[in-house]
């Protein structure tokens, strides 16, 4: 009998600890499928963040390291510069990548570090119980913005992809979402391209994945996916913000 569906080799058998309706499981799977399809499982090294995906090292079957909060791109830089023949990726949330780790993010992009960054933006700190993130929307109610995010008090959410795309350094910056089948398919393509770029030595590739946090948003999984469409995507539009190859640019 033909196999029509199976677990990617790049995922272990460990059950995910994520909340019901959390898209981390989908995004893990997309990363694992991309690694499988490119045949790079045996030479991939993953860097887990601090945040909900902190235990990603239990879920991916490639070699893994757990980085301090926000430092994943620096840790990945150390690995990649030591073993350029390996494929190195980070998997980070919005607090990790866009708040405490912003310097590491910007400078690894500016150096066009030949790594792949999977950036999961769900507009909230999940692991610590739902605090305001650098990407929380204006008016968004969180544990630390209980009256809604007041932009006059704590500023505006950061559009990471648009900001990084202003740099000369990075190869590929794109934003995708996982709120419906079509978007999930596009996310898979983007993630695969971000790994393919590294294989080809093209440099820093970041895929921002707009995701949901039903638990801390106080929504059902279905409502959360709808909120991505109605509230997240107008502020965080999907698209490719930088692709040096497409522009016929100067890939090394």
């Amino acid at each position, binding site marked *: 009998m033909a196999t029509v569906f199976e677990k990617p080799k790049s995922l272990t058998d460990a059950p995910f600890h994520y909340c019901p309706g959390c898209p981390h499981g989908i995004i893990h799977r997309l990363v694992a499928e991309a690694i499988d399809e490119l045949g790079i499982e045996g030479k991939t090294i993953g860097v887990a963040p601090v945040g909900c995906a902190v235990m990603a090292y239990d879920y991916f079957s490639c070699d893994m390291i757990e980085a301090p909060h926000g430092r994943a791109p620096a840790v990945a830089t*150390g690995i990649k*510069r030591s073993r350029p023949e390996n494929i190195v990726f980070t998997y980070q949330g919005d607090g990790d990548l866009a708040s405490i780790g912003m310097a590491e993010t910007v400078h690894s992009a500016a150096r066009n570090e030949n790594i792949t960054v999977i950036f999961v933006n769900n507009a909230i700190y999940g692991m610590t119980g739902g605090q305001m993130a650098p990407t929380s929307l204006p008016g968004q109610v969180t544990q630390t913005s209980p009256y809604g995010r007041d932009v006059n008090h704590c500023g505006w959410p950061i559009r990471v992809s648009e900001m990084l795309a202003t740099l000369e350094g990075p190869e590929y910056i794109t934003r995708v979402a996982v709120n419906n089948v079509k978007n999930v398919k596009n996310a898979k393509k983007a993630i695969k391209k971000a790994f393919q770029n590294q294989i080809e030595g093209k440099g820093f590739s970041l895929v921002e994945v707009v995701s949901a946090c039903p638990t801390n948003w106080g929504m059902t999984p279905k409502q959360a996916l709808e909120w991505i469409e109605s509230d997240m995507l107008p502020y965080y539009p999907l698209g490719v913000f930088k692709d040096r190859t497409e522009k016929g640019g100067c890939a090394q």
Partner: protein
Amino acid sequence: MADRILMKGNEAIAEAAIRAGCRHYFGYPITPQTEIAAYMAKKMPKIGGVFLQAESEVASINMVYGAAAAGVRVMTSSSSPGVSLKAEGLSYIAGSDVPALVVNVQRGGPGLGGIQPSQSDYFQATKGGGHGDYRMIVLAPASVQEMASLTMKGFDLADKYLITSMILADGTIGQMMEPITFEDSEPTVYEKPWALTGTECKRPHNVVNSLYLKPEELEKKNFDRYEKYRVIEENEPMWEEYMMEDADLCVVAFGIASRVAKNAVAEARKQGIKVGLIRPITLWPFPTKALRAAADKVKGFISVELSMGQMIEDVRLATESKKPVSLCNRAGGMIPTPDEVLAAIVKAEKGEF
């Protein structure tokens, strides 16, 4: 016999690291250690190595963490305020049991402090600095020759025990020039089956990690690590004794302070005072046995330090406070003169501690 060459202390560290097989250096500019980075920037690209100037001390120590986990000999160097920024990474490196070499060419503090030599990061180096229960092997060179030899030894100890070796130097030794010799020897290569190299689909995945959510597991990790530390305390203390055979007073000093103290001890001997010197070379593990043995022979100790008195606490602990300990110190970038140390010796000779 290898050639004798004239080198600056900081350059000696860099050259020794290359000779020890280090091909990966990540750092951030700060006075007074910049010659290390400059030397690496010049040399590494010529020998297939990596020099990378990071965006911060925080990033550079995390690059070290990644490279160490990937199984290569790796180092960073900085000076006091920069080492404070590295504290997070040092804790993760300790908690993940990967080997690294970190150099601190100390300057005066706290805060931005100054850029003149100091030994006031003794507590930070020997007692922690970062969070959690951990130790680093702390090596304190007192000459340009030792800047080189302790760097090489530091890499070996790091690989042998899967620990951070810190070279705790100071601005004086970093900046001064002395003739040194490099012995021709091949670096020892250690097997690193735990390293992140890619599984090649032939083994279970390696995980480098310091997170253990089950308290029983984390406790066991800590107890196991402290067993390793106990072995290091047993086997690795290093110290130098000078004129201690018949001494009834003991000066304790490390690094540049020990150079000044040695002159003072020689001068005191000329005046007929039976004084000797114990110079800790490893600050952790502290040469406790040597100090404890001296406590049975001498009537007191004088701790000579470029700080407000930090090592003195370890001298009291090591000697179980059996004999009085006085402090002869300068701080903030000032260095005591041999006469100042001699005055402290003369005072101690009269029983004034």
